[in-house]
Every structure is written in C-alpha cells, then in structure tokens.
C-alpha cells in the first residue's frame, strides 16, 4: 500500500472576481521512502496541492471541492481534527516557500524550533533544546549554540530557510513536503541540505515531495517527477524518462527554457503567451493557447492522463494519437 494516495483533488478559491480552480483534479501516489518532484508553471497549483494535504488552505476563500488524500489509511481531507493533529506536524511535515513569513518575528529561533517537539513528543524542555541544537548544526548553522537564541531578523534569508528545514525534520517525519526548500540557498549549502534529506531518507525511510523550479535539483534527488500546468498534472514519469524523453509539449518547452543549456548573451527561449485564467472553465487542453502543436481538437477535449510507457503518463491528445 502506498504511503500517500491523492485522488481527484480539487481546491478552488472563491473570490470577488470569480472561482479560481487552483488545483483541478490532481491524483498521484507516493511510496514509503520515495522522492517525488513536482515542477511546473508558477501559479499552477503546486503549493496549493501541498497546502491541501497539510490542511493549510485558507478557508474561505479556499475550499476543497472534492478528493481524498489517504496517508497510511487515514483520509487527511476528511478525518477528525484529532486524527489530523496526530499526523500533521509530526508524521507529515512541511517546509514552506516563504521562510520569513512562516517564522514568528517576535519569538526566538529556539522557541519556534523546539515547539513541535514540546507539542508532539512531550519531552522536557532541556532535552528538546538539545535536539534543536543538534538539528541546527545538522542543517549547517555554524555557531548554533549562540545563534539558537537569536530572533529571525538576525538571520540571513538562507539561514532562516535552514531553520525551517530543521523544524520540519526535528520530529523525524515519515513524509516531508518541501516547497522550494533550497531556492534561497547557495549551491554549496543546497548540496549539504539535499545530502541531509537523502541521509534521512536512507536512515528513516522518509518519503519526500519536493516542489522546485530547479531542474538540476530534481535530476539529482527525485525518483519520479510530476509536471503541473494550470491546476492539472500534464506529465509524470521516472526522472530519467522525463529528462531524456519528455512527451508533453509543455514539459519539452520547460526543458528548452533552462538557461544553462543556452548560449550566453542570446535571448533565452521562453514559452509565448500567458497561463490561462483559472477563473474561467477550460474546456480543452489548458496549454492549447500557448502550444506550438495545437489543432482545433485540442481546444474542446480535456486530454486524460494516459500511460505511454511503463509508469510514464502524459496528457496531450496529439502525443496520444502518435502525431508528435
């Protein structure tokens, strides 16, 4: 049985200007110890997918319209608050994209760091502080014994991000949801954090959902990758297949946009046009207005996610028809 099974998740935002279908029918599974990468357009619903699993969608305006997220037999979207509390923050932990806004500016780092331990494990303060210190050192904060007593504003952006990572790992979760965990970090610290995540996976069998824009990080860490566009999954495959044989036109275009593969000084390849208005129902393929392979058919049929190789699924009508 998979550790996590998300089925037909739909999370909409009901705002003055309409209903935004931020996540619109997302399904996936995650095995114990597996690392799943989620990549895709900015605004495509990657963070909202994570928030939905963590029960952190602001309601209102947000609402989970349908779907289930079954973690080890418990549906996180429909369980009692008591059941949820026993899982979230302890067995499932999350690292947020905005590290500054998710730390309380008025509390010392030490207080925030050991809070999950005090709540979930009910261990004495002194022991919690010791564990907190060890975790800060593990994420590469030098002079941790002194710095643990600082306030968030006394840390650099990357140091705050590492505090968030330490907070998430301190309860030794079975599932870590990491939303852009290393974008604020330089490459040497990033390599160190990714190594720490890898070690925790090996030692504790921790599964990871990694949301990132850095395709280099994905290729080093993830077993499988899932590509999102406009609230839907358009392609999912094991990492090698996705990098060496991407099928969906959006995935191909995304790959072409990577700066390191393009000559310096040239204009970078970009995908023309803009992402669709999520407040308007999209009848066909959401990528159709920007896709260079679009035919009429694409605009009126929503392409289903279809298997095109072992474990490789994609949602493009023309790829499915063997035309591209």
């Amino acid at each position, binding site marked *: 049985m998979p550790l996590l099974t998300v089925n037909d998740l739909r999370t909409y*935002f009901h*705002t*003055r*200007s309409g209903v935004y279908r931020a996540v619109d029918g997302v399904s996936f599974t995650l095995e114990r110890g597996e690392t799943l990468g989620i990549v*895709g*357009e*900015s*605004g*495509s619903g990657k*963070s909202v997918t994570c928030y939905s699993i963590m029960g952190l969608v602001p309601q209102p305006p947000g609402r989970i319209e349908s779907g289930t997220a079954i973690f080890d037999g418990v549906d996180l979207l429909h369980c009692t608050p008591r059941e949820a509390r026993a899982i979230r923050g302890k067995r499932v932990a999350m690292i947020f*994209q*905005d*590290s*500054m*806004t998710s730390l309380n500016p008025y509390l010392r780092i030490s207080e925030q760091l050991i809070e999950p331990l005090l709540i979930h494990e009910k261990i004495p303060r002194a022991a919690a502080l010791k564990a907190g210190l060890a975790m800060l*050192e593990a994420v*590469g*904060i*030098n*002079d941790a014994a*002194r710095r643990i007593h600082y306030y968030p504003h*006394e840390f*650099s*952006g*990357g*140091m705050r*991000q590492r505090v968030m990572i330490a907070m998430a790992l301190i309860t030794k979760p079975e599932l870590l949801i990491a939303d852009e965990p290393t*974008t*604020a*970090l*330089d*490459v*040497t*610290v*990033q*390599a160190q954090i990714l190594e720490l995540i890898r070690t925790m996976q090996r030692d504790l069998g921790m599964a990871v959902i990694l949301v990132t*824009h*850095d*395709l*280099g990080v*994905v*290729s*080093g860490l993830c077993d499988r990758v899932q590509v999102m566009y406009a609230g839907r999954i358009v392609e999912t495959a094991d*990492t*090698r297949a996705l*990098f060496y044989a991407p099928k969906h036109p959006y995935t191909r*275009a*995304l*790959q072409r*946009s990577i*700066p*390191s*593969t393009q000559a*310096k*000084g040239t*204009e*970078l390849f*970009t*995908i023309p046009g*803009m992402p669709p208005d999520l407040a308007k129902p999209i009848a066909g393929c959401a990528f159709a207005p920007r896709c260079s392979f679009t035919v009429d058919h694409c605009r009126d049929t929503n392409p289903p996610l279809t298997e095109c190789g072992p474990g490789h699924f994609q949602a493009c009508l023309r790829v499915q028809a063997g035309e591209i």
Partner: protein
Amino acid sequence: MPDPILELRDVKTHFPIQRGFFIKRQAGVVKAVDGVTLSLQRGEVLGLVGESGCGKSTLARTIMQLVPTTGGTVVLEGKNLASGSAAEVRRTRRDMQMVFQDPYASLNPRMTVFATLAEPLIVHRVCPRAEVTARVIRLMETVGLAPRFMQKYPHEFSGGQRQRIAIARALALEPKVIIADEPVSALDVSIQAQILNLLAELGRRMNLSLVFIAHDLSVVKHISDRIAVMYLGRIVELGPAADVIERPRHPYTRALVSAIPTPNPDVERTRQRIVLAGDPPSPIDPPAGCAFHPRCPHAREICQAAVPPLMPDSPAREVACVRLAEI
C-alpha cells in the same frame, strides 16, 4: 572608457549584537560587510554570488542606504550617499530601486496590485493622473502579468506572481540602477527566462545598470557582464562572467562552481563535487587571515597571516588568495 554610475569604496556594515533583557550589553559585532570596493558601469550587469549569510543582502541594503554604513563610501553619479543628507538620499531613491529577496514581506498586503504600482507613479508625479491606469497596465504586461489581476491582493498570488509585482514596482520609476536580490529564485524556468530577457532588454534600451544577486550560477552567468564572488563580507574574486564560471581561480569559487546542479540525471548522480570541509565561519569572530582557510583544501600556514587583498590575476580578473600562483 569606464563610466561608473555607482562606486563603492571600502564599504563596511557591522551590526552590534545586544544581549540581555533589562540591561542591554553589546555581546559582539557581526561584520556582515567588511571592506568591499566595487564599481558598477553604466549599463552593466554585475552578478553577486556567495554563500548564504556572506553579506549579499546586507551589501544591497547598504547601497540603498537602508542600513547605516559603518565605514567607506557609496557614490552614485558623483554623489556620496553614505554622508549625504536625508533629502539627498530621498532624491536618489528614485534613481535606484531594489527588488527584495522576499517578495511577500516587501509588498503591502492591504494594497491591490494597482495601488502598489500606481503609488510611486503618483507620489513622484511620473505621469498625469489620467495616464496612471494605462501606465500600470503597461508595467504589468512588461513583467508578464495579465492586467485582469489588477484588483487582486498579494496573498491571492503564487510566489512567482508576487515576485513579478515586485519587479514591476521597481521598474515603475524608470530607475538608472536596480539592485535585484534574488529576483528570479522563486520563478519557474520559463518565467525566469522571460524576466531575464526583460532585464537584459531594459539594460540595453534604457542603459539600466543592474546588481544581480542570485544563487543559481547558470542564471548569473547568463545575465551578467561581470561576476563578483563574496565570502564572509568580502569580495574574493571578480571578473568577466563566463570566465569566472568556466575558469574559477579562487578555491572558494572552485568549490561553488563544482556544486552547481546540472539538469541531467545521469551526469548529476555521478559527478564529483569539491566538498567543503567544516561549517561556514561565523561573521562574529571570523578566522584570522583568509576567512576561507579553515575549509580550503589548499590552505597553508601563510594563509592565516593576513587578509589577502584582491589582486589582479589576469587583466580583467582579480582574486584574493595568497597561494594563487602555486595552486
């Protein structure tokens, strides 16, 4: 013919650390920026890279006069900002704009996108009132945001969309210099490419000068004319962008370049990194001599003797390492 728009001479920014609740006492000083000399040419893009916590954001905030400078001078078009009057500093605000690392914290949560972008236009009387809306729409389009988002609030946007609002706001006053602190880290590669093309084009068209701070070295290499590598409050290497990344000279730059992740699973899983031993040092009591020596694979006795100055290595390159000739 060099034509510097911005010049930093021996700039230092130190933060006192206070401890104690009732009786404050100074427990030390963080030398976040400790002697930086740099010049930015008109129309140039200068990339600034370095370890997390090495002082990049503090240097940016020092240039913008958002933190008090401890020492040295910051000169914008001949005017010394570090010793200028408050009024002078305010005037230069218009010519120099900053995009912050954390777009959520830097946008007012109670202001719609329209209000956010219209405010500087109105305050600085950039255009007649009647043209404000058209101007805002143009700004939004410039950064790839659909004008239909105009009446939305920051929390209604994704991380990447918020960053584009912040960039549009920095562009509103058509500044001469933009200090961009990790402006594209939060963006997907396609939008990142759009923003980079946009910044490059603005640079060409408006002769905009740009200090570009980022962790993604392939991005920095692509957009920058020159790259400055910082380590613990100082510049340790400076040179033409492609050259610095392809032929790094300083041992820290070498380690940095070797850690760049490549978007290629087979390469990424088999390649060799220069793993840095030890932790990043503390800016509170930095190591003696070259601050990198405790982690440097080439360190010798001599490295602890004095802080190595930035010395010309080849005509366009400067490196701060005493053992450069031997390694």
